[in-house]
């Protein structure tokens, strides 16, 4: 199958466009999350998404309605993680673990009680970007604009508080607000990324392009741009390769990302110790 033929399919065009938009979001936010040691928040919110998907399936909500219905649940859970960490005197990772476990438990419980939608639920665990519909793509594009606008507006504040939160606070920056913005933008992105790589592999899309970029970046802006470029290229390659070879798309994207990370790591090592 040649490139023209592959691109002639409507579902491939939608998958490549949607996948690229989501890859940009995951990679850009991933840089902030990785540097703040919050990488696993993606995993935690993905597990909440699992519970939310089960809830949506329980009420027979599908496609766009499902996406729209799980967004508020995931946003509320993201805020819950922040509040738990701030008010309940527990560390961030413990808060993520708690919310994550509640998400999974809710999903398993609903699937068991309702029965009959286990197959649907399974498809969300591993994602299927090739099945993205035009309306889902429109939602993805709208959320892309919202998240990118948020990152652009808060870019310098996010950078400052990622560099050193105490220094940022001592400059009069409202670091609690900045943390909330980051977590909410991440929650929106996780809901979108579920379609590309599935709930199980979302954290990989948040972490891998970012850590690859951090191997080679020479400055913060360079890191953000490199991560976005790596994310887009790996998602496009992953979708195309998996389609041609008849492989699972999410897993292919993740493994290509890992290969890129190994290359970036090798390049860095060779450049430092020729």
């Amino acid at each position, binding site marked *: 199958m040649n490139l023209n033929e592959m691109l002639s399919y409507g579902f491939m065009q939608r998958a490549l466009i949607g996948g690229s938009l989501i890859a940009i979001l995951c990679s850009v936010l991933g840089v902030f999350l990785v540097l703040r040691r919050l990488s696993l928040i993606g995993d935690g919110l993905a597990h909440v998404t699992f519970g939310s998907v089960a809830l949506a399936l329980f009420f027979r909500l599908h496609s766009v309605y499902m996406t729209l219905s799980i967004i508020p649940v995931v946003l509320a859970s993201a805020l819950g993680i922040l509040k738990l960490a701030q008010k309940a005197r527990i560390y961030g990772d413990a808060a993520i673990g708690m919310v994550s476990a509640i998400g999974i438990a809710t999903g398993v419980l609903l699937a068991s009680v309702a029965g009959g939608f286990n197959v649907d639920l399974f498809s969300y665990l591993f994602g299927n970007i090739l099945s993205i519909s035009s309306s889902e793509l429109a939602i993805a594009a709208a959320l892309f604009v919202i998240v990118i606008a948020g990152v652009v507006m808060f870019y*310098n*504040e996010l950078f400052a508080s990622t*560099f050193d939160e105490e220094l940022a606070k001592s400059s009069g920056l409202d670091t609690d607000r900045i943390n909330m913005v980051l977590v909410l933008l991440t929650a929106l992105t996780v809901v979108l990324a579920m379609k590309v790589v599935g709930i199980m592999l979302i954290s990989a899309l948040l972490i891998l392009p970012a850590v690859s970029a951090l191997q080679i970046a020479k400055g913060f802006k*360079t890191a953000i741009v490199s991560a976005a470029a790596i994310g887009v290229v790996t998602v496009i390659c992953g979708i195309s390769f998996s389609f041609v070879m008849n492989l699972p798309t999410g897993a292919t994207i993740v493994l290509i990302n890992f290969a890129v990370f190994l290359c970036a790591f090798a390049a860095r090592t060779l450049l430092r110790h020729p």
Partner: protein
Amino acid sequence: MNDKALSVRNLCAGYHGSEVLQDISFSVNAGDYVGICGPNGSGKSTLIKIILQLLAPTSGEVSVLGTPQASFRDWHRIGYLPQGLQFFNPHFPATVDEVIRLGRLSAKKFPKRFNRDDAFAVDRTMEWMGISHIRGAMIGELSGGLRQRVLLARALVNDPALLVMDEPTTALDPETRESFYKLIFEMNREKQCTVLLVTHDTATIGKYASHLLYLDKKVVFYGSFDDFCNSAEMTGFFGEHGQHLVCHRH
């Protein structure tokens, strides 16, 4: 015009029920260079955190640059240099130029964007501090001394009226430490910037500070350095040898 850079009245503060600062009061005139010293756990860093609003006091009043803390918004008039970065990651992908520019954020309104004036201020500060040649270097690849110099540049990029430093030279070798303090002294003299310096380095206080605040949960001594050197408390604080060391400039 209010010429008080800092005014602290009946300040109490602590952590989890234990009081670290007990009813302290003092004020600092604009242009003073105040050395803050005292034993470990005496409340020096707690005082700095309260001045910067990183910690809320349990009671008392603090006015910074003539404004009560509750209504203070002129963050660009304060420069802060910590002992080191809170959780410094040597692989953090930020250049020297990017780090210094972050200091300009305090003067911005939302959405906080940088412009030509900011680039000019960064250039001018780097030139003054003699670090223009490393502007593109990654912060994590610098030596401890150079990294503190970059953080000082970040603190000074707005030409602050008040510079607050919390043991800024702990990790530096004696030679670097000396040049670091000379730079701050120069800035205090040339730009009339008020300096608050927390340090265990009593020799430095003797050499550069105009005033000394000695804390031990309470204010044990506060006054001009000359008064301190001539006071009977002096020997009690530092011993005979310490007296010579701290007051050797006199």
